[in-house]
């Protein structure tokens, strides 16, 4: 494949400027349908409300921890919307909103962060891998699974979500290399939100853009304005189609920003200035899409009101779900360590049972 065809656009693909007016850096990509964009907007409003609610729930002790993705809704929603039912999503701990957009229930999504279990949904049914905590390790799983689907003649694509910090990990590079060599139908979607906990992008990588990482592996790459939902959706749609059409993997870097701290336990004022955050708040992906769709007469005030009201109802569902403490069975600790429990585990289970009954 000629290197030129792998090169990302010179500047991030953008359909909508920060003020919501039409921009023209779309590099030949087609604009998604109005209905699709309206659905993206609906989910972004929902996702923002979910994120605010989850953060609030950490303060009430209902969640052990919550890593906010506020400001990254365009990326989160597009990642879910671009995938078909048979495709696999490989999320990280920060990608709860993507899971909501994929159709998972709040209780399923928050099980991990609430501390009830390591995964609250059935990955085999939802085709969503467990939210991954070690960085970049899931990019290899996505690659292997994409290869497996291709070998079986299935039509599936795997999309792995990672952050800027994860691109420094060895597994990320091994995954890109494997994916390119095996021409696996996988999309690596990097949400470059500028900080890996406290370490700014400038200290993370000397690359002009992470999108350039793909070329050396022989992989098509692209960069996109991560706060422009129209652009993210368009670029990801194209990337997924590229992979589905057996043209090999794609690396997409979205330039975005994490508005809140790494998690509720982090103090972001220690490592970044307030005016930087304020500047990025101006680039808010939700209001940008709203302004654009209103100007395009795709979205009415009534619809916006309806979406917000639905999001409020959803927040109530989130609260109700989290307020109902599920009963956890300590004896279930011994389940699913092996296909069949070993004698050691049966003995330990009996000991714990006796302890509980004493």
């Amino acid at each position, binding site marked *: 494949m000629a290197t030129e065809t792998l090169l990302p656009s010179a500047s991030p693909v953008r359909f909508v400027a920060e003020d919501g007016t039409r921009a023209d850096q779309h590099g030949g990509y087609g604009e998604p349908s109005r209905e699709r964009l309206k659905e993206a907007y609906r989910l972004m409003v929902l996702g923002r409300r979910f994120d605010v609610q989850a953060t609030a729930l950490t303060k009430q002790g209902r969640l052990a921890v919550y890593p906010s993705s506020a400001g990254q809704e365009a990326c989160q929603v597009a990642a879910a919307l671009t995938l078909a039912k048979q495709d696999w999503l490989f999320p990280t701990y920060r990608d709860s909103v993507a899971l909501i957009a994929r159709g998972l229930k709040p209780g399923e999504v928050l099980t991990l962060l609430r501390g009830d*279990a390591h995964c609250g949904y059935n990955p085999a049914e939802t085709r969503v891998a467990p939210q991954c905590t070690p960085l970049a390790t899931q990019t290899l799983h996505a690659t292997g699974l994409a290869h497996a689907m291709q070998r079986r003649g299935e039509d599936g694509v795997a999309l792995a979500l990672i952050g800027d910090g994860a691109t420094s990990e060895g597994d990320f590079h091994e995954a890109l290399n494997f994916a390119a060599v095996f021409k696996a139908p996988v999309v690596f979607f990097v949400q470059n939100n500028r900080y890996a906990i406290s370490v700014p992008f400038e200290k993370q990588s000397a690359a002009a853009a992470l999108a350039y990482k793909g070329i050396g592996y022989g992989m098509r790459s692209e960069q996109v304005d991560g706060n422009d939902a129209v652009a993210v959706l368009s670029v990801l749609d194209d990337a997924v189609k590229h992979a589905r059409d057996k043209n090999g993997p794609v690396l997409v870097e979205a330039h975005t920003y994490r508005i809140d701290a790494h998690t509720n336990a982090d103090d972001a004022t220690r490592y970044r200035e307030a005016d930087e955050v304020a500047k990025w708040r101006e680039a808010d992906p939700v209001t940008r899409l709203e302004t654009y769709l209103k100007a395009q007469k795709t979205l009415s005030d009534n619809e916006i009101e309806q979406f917000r009201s639905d999001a409020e109802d959803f927040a109530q569902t989130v609260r109700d779900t989290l307020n109902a403490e599920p009963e956890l069975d300590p004896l279930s600790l011994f389940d*699913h360590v092996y296909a069949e429990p070993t004698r050691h585990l049966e003995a330990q289970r009996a000991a714990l049972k006796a302890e509980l009954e004493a």
Partner: protein
Amino acid sequence: MTTTMAQALNAAMRDALKDDDNVVVFGEDVGALGGVFRVTDGITADFGEDRCFDTPLAEAGIVGFAVGMAMGGFRPVVEMQFDAFAYPAFEQITSHVAKLRNRTRGALSLPMVIRIPYAGGIGGVEHHCDSSEAYYTHTPGLRVVTPGTAQDAYDLLRDAIDSPDPVVFLEPKCRYWSSEEVSFTRSGPAMDQAVVRRPGKDVTLIAYGPMVATALETAEAAKEEGWDVEVVDLRSLSPFDDETVTASVRRTGRAVVVHEAAGFGGYGAEVVARVTEQCFHQLHAPVLRVTGLDIPFPAPKLERHQLPDVDRILDTIARLQWADTPVVAGA
């Protein structure tokens, strides 16, 4: 026909590939070359590149890719080439391979085998001779097995490939070329069972992998000293077969655990603890260990000092004359 352990492993993979279309073999150099030890010799030629293929040189990549393929319905058998080369894949093995079933409450399983040629005795240079079993046995969710004979190489690898759990399959590379008559009928004991390789009355030698042959040699040599030595081959390091081991030690009243890995914090400590807890009243002496030294694996010309040998094991058996009852039967 006699078969070497390497050939027995090769036959096990071939038979598994024939029996189940989902079985795939991959790793570095496993294709045209047939692996650096030729354990996958001819498999690509006979089964095609779809079933046995070379990957880029990246151990975390090989194991992580196998995780995805197993999630997608395949049964990967991957080769790590050498013990210490598997360390880059350690995170994938401990954080993902071992835990996916548990994390997903049984919704996903990883029926995969990670083959690791391990231990010394072949004059290998550094990073080619580690005994890394304790790292893996310390990880819940993994099964860890190691054959001591060519027959077990076939049986255990067939069982490991069929296992619904991920298996770390440790191949004692110094035994690759030892040969014996092998039956390919899979009539041996189950994968998680230890076996008494040689019955004896006075002391139980507990060994596995490369040390099984050494323990059997020791038992022969001990006859001259008047000691009747029982040899137990663990086969499965995790889970551990308490029943076979404790039954033996209760019979003999004395036990020595032999392994090549460093002793401190090693696998033998677990065996000693379990035997002591379960056989205390039958023991005539403390359970002792003969292990590798607590040093990084030495350079080839010095490795003989690292490896437990017959003399060192005999000396340790001699130390077992702790109580009134002598080790030497009838003496």
